[in-house]
């Protein structure tokens, strides 16, 4: 292989368990966002827009949709004969198979992939966040400061600093200590989970740490070990939009933010495009009976109803007389006539029957998963079928294609989940 200056390792195996049913059938990076995109599109597009043409994508949890989405990397121009996109799944070595047991362990298990490009630097990122960042500028900073590792950081509110991994730095932003979720934070620079390493140094650190920790992790083990051995670690400040859409509420509000007249995160600029995989470029149709405003509606949709303050994915059909408000509807879902949906998330390939009401009643937290569903948002999982005339309350979870709604009703805070649905 021709030598590469820098390659990227993209961690895409995370479950995102706080996304509840949305990440039941797909890894968090594969969860749709902003209508036509999936979360991983933002980091993948950042890579190619920053001039990185070799990306190893590490998958583990529910990789099917992710694999299909990435394919050979065509939408990102990562279908290349030297480099490009490579899916790196856990695999058998010798006689034993081994899962990726930690973020650094995943990279450790793929040292030979990285070695084959003999890079000077390795960018380690995760496919979990929504942001636009020019990694080439971070690399310049890394080279300028002669770093062994550079960690992108975000200034957070002091009273929120205890929720993050905090970098304690000197006046030149040189890191002297890393604290995971400190009770009494000494600094407010939170790690964004974006690292540039000088490969030679990272390689050694991974090999050394693997002897000690079975579940080698960047935050917990690698960074502290590099600090202990007096290596040169710097914080790289980032001050633009960055969102971890890790909970139902943050996922919903980050989507809703996009429909504002002037959103903080701009999808419409030409110089930093976000690329995604779409089956076919198709037009979208807004019908005679439609009334829509303050929304994002993706290509292939057919809208005949009222849609306000919503984000709709590819090929969504909203039939006549249906009223959608403050909701997210993902690709290929159909909402039939005269239904009313308020504050809900409809996953991909869902069919909602006629005269269905979702999001009515009191805001009672979900009984089974009160920590996940508690802000009034009801979620309908992938491939589900909700029959005609059903009424669903707030904080409900529905998943399945042969569901039995008693009295055509699901009270607020209740769940109706089948183990399996046909794909």
């Amino acid at each position, binding site marked *: 292989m021709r030598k590469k200056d820098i390659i990227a390792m993209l961690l895409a195996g995370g479950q995102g368990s706080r996304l509840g049913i949305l990440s039941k059938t797909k890894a968090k990076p594969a969860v749709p966002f*902003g209508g*036509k995109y999936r979360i991983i599109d933002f980091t993948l597009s950042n890579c190619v827009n920053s001039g990185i043409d070799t990306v190893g994508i590490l998958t583990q949890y529910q990789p099917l949709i992710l694999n299909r989405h990435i394919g050979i990397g065509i939408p990102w121009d990562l279908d290349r004969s030297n480099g490009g996109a490579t899916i790196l799944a856990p695999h058998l070595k010798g006689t034993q198979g081994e899962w990726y047991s930690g973020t650094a362990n995943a990279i450790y298990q793929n040292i030979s992939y990285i070695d084959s490009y003999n890079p000077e630097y390795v960018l380690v990122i995760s496919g979990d966040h929504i942001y636009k960042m020019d990694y080439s500028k971070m690399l310049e900073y890394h080279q300028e400061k002669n770093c062994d590792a550079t960690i992108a950081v975000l200034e957070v509110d002091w009273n929120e600093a205890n929720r993050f991994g905090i970098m304690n730095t000197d006046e030149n932003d040189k890191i002297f200590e890393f604290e995971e979720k400190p009770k009494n934070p000494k600094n407010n620079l939170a790690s964004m989970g974006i690292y540039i390493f000088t490969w030679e140094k990272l390689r050694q650190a991974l090999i050394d740490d693997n002897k000690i920790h079975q579940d080698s992790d960047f935050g917990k083990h690698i960074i502290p070990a590099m600090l202990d051995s007096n290596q040169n670690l710097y914080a790289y400040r980032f001050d633009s939009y960055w969102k971890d859409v890790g909970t139902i509420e943050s996922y919903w509000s980050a989507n809703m933010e996009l429909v504002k007249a002037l959103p903080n995160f701009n999808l419409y600029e030409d110089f930093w495009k976000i690329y995604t995989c779409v089956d076919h*470029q198709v*037009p*979208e*149709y*807004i019908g005679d009976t439609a009334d*829509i*405003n303050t929304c994002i509606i993706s290509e292939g949709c057919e809208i005949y109803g009222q849609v306000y303050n919503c984000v709709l994915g590819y090929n969504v059909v909203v039939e006549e007389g249906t009223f959608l408000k403050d909701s997210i509807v993902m690709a290929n879902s159909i909402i039939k006539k005269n239904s009313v949906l308020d504050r809900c998330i409809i996953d991909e390939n869902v069919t909602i029957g006629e005269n269905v009401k979702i999001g009515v009643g009191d805001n009672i937290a979900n009984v089974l998963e009160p920590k996940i569903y508690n802000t009034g948002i009801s979620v309908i999982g992938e491939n589900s079928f909700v029959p005609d005339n059903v009424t669903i309350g707030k904080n409900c979870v529905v998943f399945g294609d042969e569901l039995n709604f008693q009295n055509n009703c699901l009270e607020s805070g209740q769940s109706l989940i089948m183990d399996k649905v046909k794909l």
Partner: protein
Amino acid sequence: MKAIGIILAGGNNEKLELLTANRAAAAMPIGSCYRALDFTLSNMSNSGINKVSVITQYNSRSLHNHLTSAKWWNLGSKYGGLFVFSPYLSNNNSFWFRGTADAIYQNLLFLTRSNEPYVIIGSGNSVYKMDYEEAFDFHVESKADITIITKEAQNENLHDYGVVKIDENNRLIDFEEKPIEPQSNIISLGIYIISRTLLINLLESILPQGRYNFVEDIIVRYRKKLNIMTYKFNGYWKNINCIKSYYDANMDFLDKNIRDLFTKQYPFIETKPRDEAPPKYNIGAKIKNCLIGSGSIMNGYAEHSVLFCKVFTGENTSIKNSIVMDKSYIGNNCVVENAIIDKEVILSDGKKIIGSPDKPIIISKNTVL
């Protein structure tokens, strides 16, 4: 399918007026995200043809721009591929393509170096979906020398087409190009199936005689000598040959049956992807019966119109019965009715562009008003 494809996309059509000032007819934007060429190109690819050449000449830049990669039409393969031929200079030839037959003849190597026994020739400026396989089987079974795909004219003006007269076995009896007094209502769609060696032989015999046109010099001239069959196509077909048919072809996409034929029913019409964000509808947007393209931002009213990619409409602006092409910016308080707004037009606040229902007004590319 054991055939290679040739798409004739080099022509101009004066009846498209200003719209083809900077583009070939085959590059005309259709249905919010397609180019006219996409239809024949996708049909060929979807019919299992994996070696296709597109012959360009007039305003070829617009087509080359569209055909920067073959992979969107699944033609990015080693054993086949997409070939784009434009006129070129060489020691013994300094001519433009003097006609359709000459255009193929000047690229004869494409034919001689192929092994597939048949050639399907189509034009790049028709909107339709067709599986050539059925016509191909008919051609082989009927042992025809040439098969012409035809249809019964409906709204088409017979004076603009090749009109065919056939017998009860669908054999061609007569062919008149753009007749003054048409003898039938069956028109040629400009799609032909012919064996590769016969095509080579015909070209090699007519070109030295200074005959350069496929229709006049092969179909019409050999109509009695060769066994020419016709195969009737019954689906939706629209030729982009004048402002009216261009306007109608776009407005046809507002009809669910026609739109679904191209966008929802397998196989699909493919085009170069745009990578634009999904369209956004702001607080003042009110849209009725419209196609909206990727990356558009709508603040105003639009009805019975086809909008392409990255169109911006301002507040209190009204667009009716119009086509607005890529990247056009329509400011606040504008009125656009019965108009075709070409690409990258800027209408400043308060402009009124009003055409008549019979003849839409055309605002040409890059106009700033």
